[in-house]
Structure formats: structure tokens, C-alpha cells
């Protein structure tokens, strides 16, 4: 699996991401500066990491979404390439039009930095095949604007088409308002594009891939992607 990790000014989670990708695939990820107009040849997976691109000025992800490299990412996605956006990366993908909806300020206004539980809604996608459907995983979040909102029709379409891949839940997989940390519509933590090849999620699976962190629940996402490409190759 050849991965390209995008780097914008103010992004700070690109190294954790590259480390996780190397761990599961054995390959170094290419770090791609935002001013580039092309992705490295042979890229399988584009990753938009977390952080605070452009200091969250204007709106989270708004300025990064208009960077030159994003035209290449849009083209890559239009050709069916897999794109993963985490945290600020999810915000950037929404702002760039690759995913519908918007990440609003957390409903209770607090920046949330802690482990949360996610329910894996289905496992027949490249982004979830490392898990079982209904599995509960524990991964950290660190965001102030992670409250996913979209108009009613869009949420209905996301649900109807099975495009919600990850949802906030209790440790035993129960979904409800008391486990919906940021007030997101339908407890949405991660969604995919219409074609299913672009995933945006607020939590950070890349931070739970090694034993030293006390939990390796995030590893399945990356391992699943590596498997997907190993099979394709």
C-alpha cells in the first residue's frame, strides 16, 4: 500500500499517521506538501491528517480545502482512489466538497480530548474490513468542532445508503444521546462518499495502533486498508 499524507501549515498529526501507515503496510508514506499539484505516481491511498490547518482561521479546514494539492485529490477521488480524512482532515474533506455536510462547534462548546467508543456499522468496505460489523472500538478524539451536521435529506441518504461507517456509542455498543459526545446528527463519527471511496472521521484511529498506547483498536482500520490493497495487487 502506497500512501500519501498531505501536509498543510498548522497540521500536527501527520507523523502519527505516517507511523501508523508504516506499521501496518511496511511502506513509508510520502509526505505531500499542500502546494504540490500532483500526487506521487502509484499512490493507493491519500490521507488528510488532523491538526489545525491555517490555525482554523475562517472555518476549520476552509483554507486548506482550497489548496493546490486538493485539485489533485479531487481528481484522484473522482477516479475511484481511496481517501481517508481524520479530524481536521474530515473538516477539510467536507469543505472541499468531497463529503457532504459540515462539522460544527461541539454542542456543549467544549474541546473534547479523550478516548471514545465507536460502533463499526458494517465491515464490507475497505475502511472497515479489519473489523467485524457491530464491533465496538476505543479510539481517542481531540476536537472542538466535530459536531457533524447536514440537512435532513442528506442525513437520510447517508443512512439509507449505509454510508455511516462509524458511530459514537457506549462501551457496549449502545447508540444514544448520552454517548453522542459532540451532538452530531445521528451520532455520526465517520461517513463515506457516495461511491464509498472517501472516508471522513473525527476520531483518531492512528493513535491506537501500538501496545505502548494501551490499546490497539485503531489498527484494524489501517490493517484493513493494507489487506484491501494486498488483495488488489
Amino acid at each position, binding site marked *: 500500500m502506497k500512501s500519501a499524507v498531505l501536509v498543510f501549515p498548522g497540521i500536527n498529526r501527520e507523523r502519527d499517521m505516517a507511523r501508523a501507515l508504516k506499521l501496518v503496510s511496511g511502506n513509508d508514506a510520502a509526505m505531500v506538501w499542500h502546494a504540490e499539484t500532483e500526487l506521487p505516481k502509484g499512490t493507493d491511498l491519500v490521507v488528510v491528517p488532523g491538526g489545525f490547518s491555517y490555525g482554523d482561521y475562517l472555518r476549520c479546514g476552509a483554507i486548506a480545502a482550497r489548496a493546490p494539492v486538493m485539485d489533485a485529490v479531487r481528481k484522484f477521488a473522482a477516479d475511484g482512489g481511496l481517501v481517508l480524512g481524520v479530524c481536521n482532515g474530515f473538516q477539510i474533506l467536507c469543505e472541499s466538497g468531497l463529503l457532504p455536510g459540515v462539522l*460544527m462547534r461541539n*454542542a456543549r462548546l467544549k474541546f473534547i480530548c479523550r478516548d471514545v467508543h465507536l460502533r463499526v456499522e458494517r465491515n464490507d468496505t475497505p475502511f472497515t474490513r479489519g473489523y467485524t460489523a457491530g464491533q465496538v472500538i476505543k479510539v481517542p478524539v481531540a476536537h472542538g468542532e466535530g459536531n457533524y451536521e447536514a440537512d435532513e435529506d442528506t442525513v437520510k441518504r447517508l443512512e439509507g445508503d449505509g454510508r455511516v461507517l462509524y458511530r459514537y456509542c457506549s462501551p457496549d455498543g449502545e447508540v444514544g444521546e448520552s454517548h453522542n459526545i459532540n451532538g452530531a446528527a445521528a451520532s455520526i463519527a465517520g461517513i463515506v462518499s457516495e461511491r464509498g471511496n472517501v472516508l471522513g472521521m473525527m476520531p483518531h484511529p492512528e493513535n491506537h495502533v501500538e501496545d505502548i498506547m494501551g490499546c490497539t483498536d485503531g489498527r484494524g482500520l489501517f490493517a484493513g486498508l493494507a489487506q484491501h490493497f494486498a488483495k488488489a495487487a
Partner: protein
Amino acid sequence: MKARVTVTLKNGILDPQGKAIEGALKSLGVAGIASVRQGKVFDIELDGAADKAKAEAALKDAADKLLANTVIENYAIEVKG
């Protein structure tokens, strides 16, 4: 030529920041506050000769492409001549 673009949240979009400000104003005892919605103001200077129509077109382009997220926000353009 100077212009102002005002970006506001659409009706029905939850505005927790506005709500917090509203609460603070009420706790300060400021009388008569019914509700607060927070928005953004961009003061923009335009290059070149004064052509109001061109300026408005450029500002609309700016608002659509970057200043507003039209999923959740409305904008208003005011060219001051």
C-alpha cells in the same frame, strides 16, 4: 473601492456560540436581549477603477468560493463606492 461582506448562519442552524454570548449578556443584566446569533464581517478593499457591477461579481465569487460555507451560511454584499 471598499466593500463589506457579512456572513451569517442560516435560520435553523444551531449556533452554540451565539447561545453562549446570549447567556453571558443575560447574566450581565443587559436588558431586552431576546436572542443572539454570531456571524462574520469581512471589510474588503478592491483594486482598480470603480465599476460597481464588476466589484459585486468579484465579491460574490469570493463569498461562494471561500468566505461562506453555503451549506450553513448566508452572505450579504455591500459595495460602498
